[in-house]
């Protein structure tokens, strides 16, 4: 009867989740996301199976795999062994099953046996394992030669073995803890065994196999693979790897008969592991409650941080400056967000980064002065590359703005501040941080740019002019680049919802793609007027014989245009923030 109730719960939970997601598609934003996400998945994952493959795995794309099928299996078995080892080494806490808070509230006080609860969890994990198997089969379509179905079932078998083993291991570790064996003692013992085995294999290889061949350049890494193949396929290794090979063999089966033959041992392993788990007399309830609480906290933090991180701030961060109680209120928001960033990136981090950058640059400069032009160019190109990366990745990585504060938008809306001030304060912190990093890179670029390259001089005036131009224009580009995702948050707040209640599935992948391309397009459009102004002034400067002045003047003109755009953007978004109805989809 209880088993029926648990099956009913699992089935209807999945069914209702599916229905909810299908119903959601009636809303245009999800439908658009579903279409784009569907197209993306079709082209990225499914198309390879639908056309040209006819359901049969493609020829191996990795040179590693061709001609090394047996070695591939051994490598997969070794990988599986490492995963199982980690399941014995990593856990620090008692065995706890991943129940939701509702499941704990309903099931733990109910007259449900421990065995039923275990069955419930094992049953509940099956859809996730199945889905993961399908995804891994689609992603790893070049990793094996069998039929799609065989490979999917192979993944399913391997993941099921791992799932059961990890559960059994957690129970065994709990029993060890109850017997007073500490985590570090256990880890030390396991690692000592591993080291002993590796050392044994190494000594055997040194004594029994010929020495490593000299690297023949034309063969790439083939020689190394051959040597490795000899190590793992002779001597003690085959015996050590054999149990793990049994688990991965179904995946590598090339036909149904081979698959069924390989499946037998795996089923035996599964049965043994099941008996092990069911008969492990370990109390998991208390740890499960704790785990559930931590999960709920983590999800709440994730919602609060919009997915930026799942940990609570461990300790208070130092304020970046003393906040006076009077003055422009937007500074308070700026100050708050700098503190927020300080939780994750401390002042010490910035100091170390600065020192490392300067030290590295000094080394490059000294090399360059000794006549190594390539090193000198590297000294220049590295900051340029990092600048480019910061420009595109910075606004996505630094999210201590409205993306972080959307869950507390109701608190912000109570403040006696016009919306534009809140938006400005929110965006200023990541913009200032990004600009700081970029200025540092610019200084490095100027200092370590070689005086000449390819027999052409790069005068100091040119270096300084370009650096000044970048230093002037980049903060404004950063600000615009940060305004765009913040605009997305305000215009599409529901698309930014994260955590337990957030929508999932390929429609959300589609939404993310739409947002990403939309933001990129908006940024490019925003840069067009500034780009035109810069080009005109640069051309004008060159025309009158002062190209360096043209660069600097062009940068100032571009910065002015970007500043106007930023101002307009802040005003626009401020209005949107004031009209934002946080009762709708945000909270």
């Amino acid at each position, binding site marked *: 009867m209880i088993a029926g109730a648990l099956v009913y719960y699992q089935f209807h939970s999945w069914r209702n989740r599916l229905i909810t997601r299908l119903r959601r598609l009636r809303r245009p934003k999800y439908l658009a996301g579903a279409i784009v996400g569907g197209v993306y998945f079709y082209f990225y994952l499914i198309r390879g199976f639908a056309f040209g493959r006819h359901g049969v795995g493609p020829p191996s794309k990795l040179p590693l795999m061709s001609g090394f099928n047996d070695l591939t299996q051994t490598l997969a078995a070794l990988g599986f062994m490492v995963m199982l080892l980690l399941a014995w080494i990593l856990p620090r806490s008692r065995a706890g099953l991943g129940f939701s808070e509702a499941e704990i509230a309903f099931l733990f006080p109910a007259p449900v046996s421990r065995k039923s609860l275990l069955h419930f969890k094992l049953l509940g994990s099956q859809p996730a394992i199945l889905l993961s198997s399908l995804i891994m089969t689609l992603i790893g379509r070049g990793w094996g030669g069998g039929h799609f179905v065989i490979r999917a079932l192979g993944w399913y078998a391997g993941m099921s073995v791992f799932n059961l083993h990890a559960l059994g291991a957690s129970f065994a570790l709990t029993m060890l803890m109850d017997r007073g064996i500490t985590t570090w003692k256990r880890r030390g013992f396991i690692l000592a065994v591993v080291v002993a085995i590796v050392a044994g294999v190494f000594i055997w290889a040194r004594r029994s196999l010929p020495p490593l061949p000299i690297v023949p350049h034309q063969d790439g890494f083939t020689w190394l693979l051959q040597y490795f193949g000899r190590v793992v396929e002779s001597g003690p290794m085959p015996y050590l790897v054999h149990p793990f090979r049994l688990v991965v063999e179904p995946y590598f089966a090339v036909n149904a008969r081979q698959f069924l033959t390989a499946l037998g041992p795996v089923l035996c392993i599964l049965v043994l592991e099941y008996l092990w788990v069911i008969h492990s007399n370990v109390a998991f309830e208390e740890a499960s409650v704790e785990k559930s609480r931590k999960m709920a906290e983590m999800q709440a933090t994730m919602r609060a941080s919009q997915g930026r991180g799942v940990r609570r701030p461990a300790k208070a961060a130092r304020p970046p400056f003393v906040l006076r109680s*009077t003055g422009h209120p937007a500074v308070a928001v700026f100050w708050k967000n700098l503190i*927020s960033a300080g939780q994750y990136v401390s002042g010490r981090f910035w100091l170390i980064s600065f020192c490392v950058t300067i030290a590295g640059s000094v080394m490059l400069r000294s090399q360059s002065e000794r006549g190594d032009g390539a090193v000198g160019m590297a000294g220049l190109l590295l900051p340029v590359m990092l600048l480019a990366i910061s420009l595109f990745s910075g606004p996505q990585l630094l999210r201590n703005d409205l993306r972080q504060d959307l869950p507390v938008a109701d608190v912000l809306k*109570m403040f*006696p501040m016009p919306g534009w001030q809140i938006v400005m304060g929110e965006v200023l912190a990541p913009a200032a941080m990004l600009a700081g990093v970029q200025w540092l890179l610019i200084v490095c670029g100027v200092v370590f740019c070689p005086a000449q390259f390819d027999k052409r001089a790069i005068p100091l005036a040119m270096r300084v002019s370009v650096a000044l131009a970048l230093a002037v224009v980049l903060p404004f580009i950063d600000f615009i680049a940060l305004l765009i995702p913040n605009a997305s948050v305000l215009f599409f707040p529901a698309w930014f919802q994260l955590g337990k209640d957030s929508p999932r599935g390929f429609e959300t992948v589609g939404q993310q793609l739409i947002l990403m391309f939309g933001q990129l397009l908006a940024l490019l459009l925003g840069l067009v007027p500034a780009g035109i102004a810069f080009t005109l002034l640069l051309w004008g400067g060159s025309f009158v014989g002062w190209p360096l002045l043209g660069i600097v003047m062009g940068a100032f003109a571009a910065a002015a245009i970007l500043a106007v755009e930023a101002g307009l953007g802040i005003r626009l978004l401020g209005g949107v923030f004031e009209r934002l109805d946080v*009762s709708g989809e945000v909270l």
Partner: protein
Amino acid sequence: MDIAPPPIAEAAAAPPQIDVAGLTKLYGDFTAVNDLSFSVRAGEVIGLVGPNGAGKTTTLRCLAGIIPLTRGAVRIGGFDLAQQPIEAKRRLAFFSDEPRLFEYLTVSQHLAFVARIYGVADCQEIGRRLLEELEIADKADKLPGELSRGMKQKLAIACGLLHAPRVIFFDEPLTGLDPIGIRRMKDSILKRARDGAAILISSHLLHLLEEICSHVLILKDGRKVIDGSLAEVRDRFSEQAGGGSLETAFFRATGETKGDA
């Protein structure tokens, strides 16, 4: 400490600090609050009661400027919330049932932040006194994650009271508090009322509201059923004058039976 509502006669002479006219809030086709009008004067404590889903929290959030009204007008301290939101918000504080804090700011940083937002010049002294009054002065360097729920609520209260608001909204302020906390909260509410604040409290704890409220407004399905002084509301739904309780009045006004509650 004695608990007694502020004198009604004194409050009646003061101009309304909260003036609500025809407040309507729609969510699509659903009407959460429908044509609600009432006013609260300085020193008055008005209890907002109603069954679940009556529109109490929506009303409070509209009045605090958190969510926009669909129709109607709200004046806080004489300032129109839609036309002069900054001036209106400068005079109010809203305390939600769940304390809303910034996870990465310490207790003292919260106060510094709020002081700058509201421009509280002598925030150090006021903040220190508030923290002492709320008995969290020793937690000044703690993050919200290191505080208990009650302490978080106290921090939220300290932040809300730092700028000495003349209009205070409480949404279920007694949820999760222990008996001592409830008593202190009631004292604090009455102290603010005596100091001239207009207070609107939403709660399901009718017997507690009876102790602190001078007025009551009963909502059902987003509509006002009745509002008036506590005595008026009780008398209106009581079979005998001077008899009955707010609970009886509530059940009669909303047409609920006690078994439904």
